C-alpha cells in the first residue's frame, strides 16, 4: 500500500461572520508499507493521523494525491475491483465498543463479512468463526453479545472481524489507547504474532512512542498534516534527525526512576487553520534559524530515511 502526495483539505466555518476557511488536515503525505511490515504514524492530537487512515480505506476522498494498493489507484476502483479492495484492507478502531453492533452476537458479527464477501460456504462459517476466535485467544463466546465483554476482549473481537475476510492490509487507528496496560500488552503480543504468522501489512497509528518503537519497522512522524521525518524504527529512535522527533522522544516518559528532564518544548501545537509560514514547526522549534520562517522544507533524504528540515537538507 502506498500514499503519494496525499492531501485532504476541509472547509470549515469561521464562525458567524467569518465565512469559510480551508483546514489542511493532511498536506502532502508519502509513505509505503509492504507485506509483513508495520508502518507507524505518530504525532500529536490533530496532526492528521486519522484522516490518513480514512483516506487509505477510501472512507473519504482526497483533495489531492493518490493511494495505491498493489499498484492501482484506490480512488479509481470500481465494481469487483472495489469490492476486492474493500475486502483486502481492513480497519481496527480505537473504541472497540462503539465499533461493534450491540445487538449482534459474536458469531453474527464475525460471519457477516464472510457472507458479504461470499467467502466460503455457509456451512463452513461456524468452523471459520471458531478458528478466528482461537487466533485472537478466545473460546466458547460465539453466542454472546458485546456488552458481556471487557474492553480488551471487545478489541480482540474487532481484530477477529478484521481478519475474517483474510485481508492483506490492516489499518489500526489507536487500537490500544482505550485499554489498560496489561490488556494493551496482551493485544500487542497478539498483533506481533499476527504480523509474524500471516504476512499482513500494518499501518499502525498511535501517539504512544513506547508502543511504536516496540512494534514498528518504519515510522512516519507527523506534524500539522505533514510527515516531517520518516525512517526505519530503530534508526528513528536511536538517532532522530528532525527537532520535533527529538522533542517527542524526550517528552515520552520512560521506566527510569528519577530521570527528571526538562520538557524541551514550550507552547501548543498551532491550529491547522492558522498555519505558520515556512516550516510548520518553526514557532516551537528549539533549533530555529534564518530560513525556517520563510521556506517550507521538503521531505528529502536517501531512502529509507527522509527528513523535512533545513538543518539537514540544503535549501
Amino acid at each position, binding site marked *: 500500500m502506498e500514499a503519494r502526495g496525499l492531501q485532504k483539505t476541509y472547509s470549515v466555518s469561521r464562525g458567524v461572520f467569518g465565512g469559510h476557511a480551508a483546514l489542511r488536515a493532511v498536506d502532502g503525505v508519502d509513505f509505503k508499507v509492504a507485506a509483513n511490515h508495520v508502518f507507524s504514524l505518530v504525532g500529536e492530537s490533530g496532526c492528521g493521523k486519522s484522516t490518513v487512515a480514512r483516506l487509505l480505506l477510501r472512507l473519504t476522498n482526497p483533495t489531492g494525491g493518490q493511494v495505491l494498493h498493489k499498484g492501482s489507484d484506490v480512488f479509481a476502483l470500481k465494481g469487483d475491483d472495489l469490492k476486492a479492495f474493500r475486502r483486502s484492507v481492513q480497519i481496527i478502531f480505537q473504541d472497540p465498543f462503539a465499533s461493534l453492533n450491540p445487538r449482534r452476537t459474536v458469531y453474527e458479527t464475525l460471519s457477516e463479512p464472510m457472507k458479504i464477501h461470499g467467502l466460503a460456504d455457509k456451512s463452513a462459517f461456524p468452523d471459520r468463526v471458531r478458528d478466528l476466535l482461537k487466533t485472537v485467544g478466545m473460546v466458547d463466546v460465539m453466542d454472546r453479545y458485546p456488552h458481556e465483554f471487557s474492553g480488551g476482549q471487545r478489541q480482540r473481537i474487532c481484530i477477529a472481524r478484521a481478519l475474517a475476510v483474510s485481508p492483506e492490509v490492516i489499518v489500526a487507528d489507536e487500537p490500544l489507547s482505550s485499554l489498560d496496560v496489561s490488556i494493551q500488552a496482551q493485544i500487542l503480543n497478539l498483533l506481533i504474532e499476527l504480523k509474524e504468522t500471516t504476512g499482513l501489512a500494518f499501518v499502525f497509528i498511535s*501517539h504512544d512512542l513506547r508502543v511504536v518503537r516496540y*512494534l514498528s519497522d518504519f515510522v512516519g512522524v507527523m506534524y500539522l498534516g505533514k510527515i516531517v521525518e520518516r525512517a526505519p524504527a530503530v534508526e528513528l529512535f536511536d538517532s532522530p534527525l528532525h527537532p520535533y522527533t527529538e522533542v517527542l522522544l524526550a517528552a515520552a*516518559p520512560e*521506566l*527510569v*526512576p528519577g*530521570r527528571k528532564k526538562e520538557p524541551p518544548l514550550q507552547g501548543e501545537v498551532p491550529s491547522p487553520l492558522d498555519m505558520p509560514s515556512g516550516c510548520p514547526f518553526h514557532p516551537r522549534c528549539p533549533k530555529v534559524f534564518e530560513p525556517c520562517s520563510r521556506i517550507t522544507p521538503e521531505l528529502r533524504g536517501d531512502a529509507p530515511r527522509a527528513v523535512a528540515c533545513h538543518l539537514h537538507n540544503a535549501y
Partner: protein
Amino acid sequence: MSLLSMRDLSINLARAPSSGKSPGGSAGSSINMVNSLTLDIPEGSVFGLAGESGCGKSLTALSILGILPRGMHATGEVTFKGRDLLKMDEKTFRSVRGHEISMVFQEPMTSLNPVLKVGYQIEEVINTHLAVSKKEAAHMAVSLLRELNIPSPEQRVREYPHQLSGGMRQRVMMAMAIACSPSLLIADEPTTALDVTIEAQLLRMIRRLRDDKGMSVLLITHDLGIIAENAETVAIMYAGRLVEQAPVAELFRAPMHPYTVGLLGSVPAQRGTKLKPVRGMVPKPWELPAGCTFSDRCDFAQEACSAAEPEFMEVGDSGAGRHRSRCIRTDDAPWRNGNNKS
C-alpha cells in the same frame, strides 16, 4: 513527617434494598470498593498511586476530599495535619477543601463550568478562601496563568472553556487547584487527555510546585513511566487494595509483588523481547477470588494463596516499613530469576 496519613481506609457502596438488578450479592448488602488502605504522604513530596482502571484510585482521592459519590461510605482514618478528615463536619471541611487540599480532576472539560469565563472561575476559588479584594483576585488569576505558561493570560481569562485547547483547560484547572497554595494537591490522571509535549510541561510544573512551595502531591496515574520520573514514593493498587508500596527506585529495581512485576512486564521496552503481561483481567469488586485477590491471575500462586488474604508486610531492606508488599511469596520471590511458573 507525614502530611496525610491514611489508616485502614475502606469504602463501601451501600445498595438500595430494591435494586435487584445491580450485580452480585444480595439486595441490601454493600459492596466493598476500597479495602483497608494504609499509606503516608510525606511533606513536600510526590506520592504516586498507580493501578489499572477501576481499582479504586479516584474513589480514594474523593474520600480525602469528602466528596464520595452517593451511596459510598468511607471508614477508617484519614489524618491531615493532625485532624481526621473522615470525622470533620461539612462546614469545617469546606474551609479545607480547595484551600489546604485541592484536586485536579480526570476530566478537565466536565469540571469547568462551560458558561463562565475561565478568569471568573479562578477568581471564585480565590475569593472563597482568601481575604483579598476582587481586583486582587483578578490580578492573581492572570499571574497564575502566566506562571503556568499560558500565552497572553490577560486575554485568556476573558474566554470560555470551549475556546481553549485541552492542554490549556487542564492548566486552568491547575490554576484553580493551586490558587490558594494548598499543602496537598491531588492530581487524578492530570495528563491523560494531553499530548506528550504538553504532558511534560504540566509534570514539570508539578515538580516545581513541590520544590519551590513544598507542596505535597498525590499523583494518580496508570502510567508507570510518569511515576518513575516524577514521584518519590509509589503505591500500586489492585482490586481496591494496596498490593505494594516502595520508594520509586526500589520498586523499579526490585518489585516485590507479582502484580507489580506483571505491570512492569506490560510496558513495551526492548524491541524483540516478548512482553510478559498479567494474564486475564481485573475481577469485578463483587467477584473477587478467595484469599489473595490477585491469586486467579498470578503465575506464582500456590494453594495457600487462596486460603487467606496476605498481610501488607514490610519487605526488602529499605527499613522503616517503607517497602511493603501483600504477598506470601516474598521470601523466595520466584519472579526475580525469570523462572516463570511455580
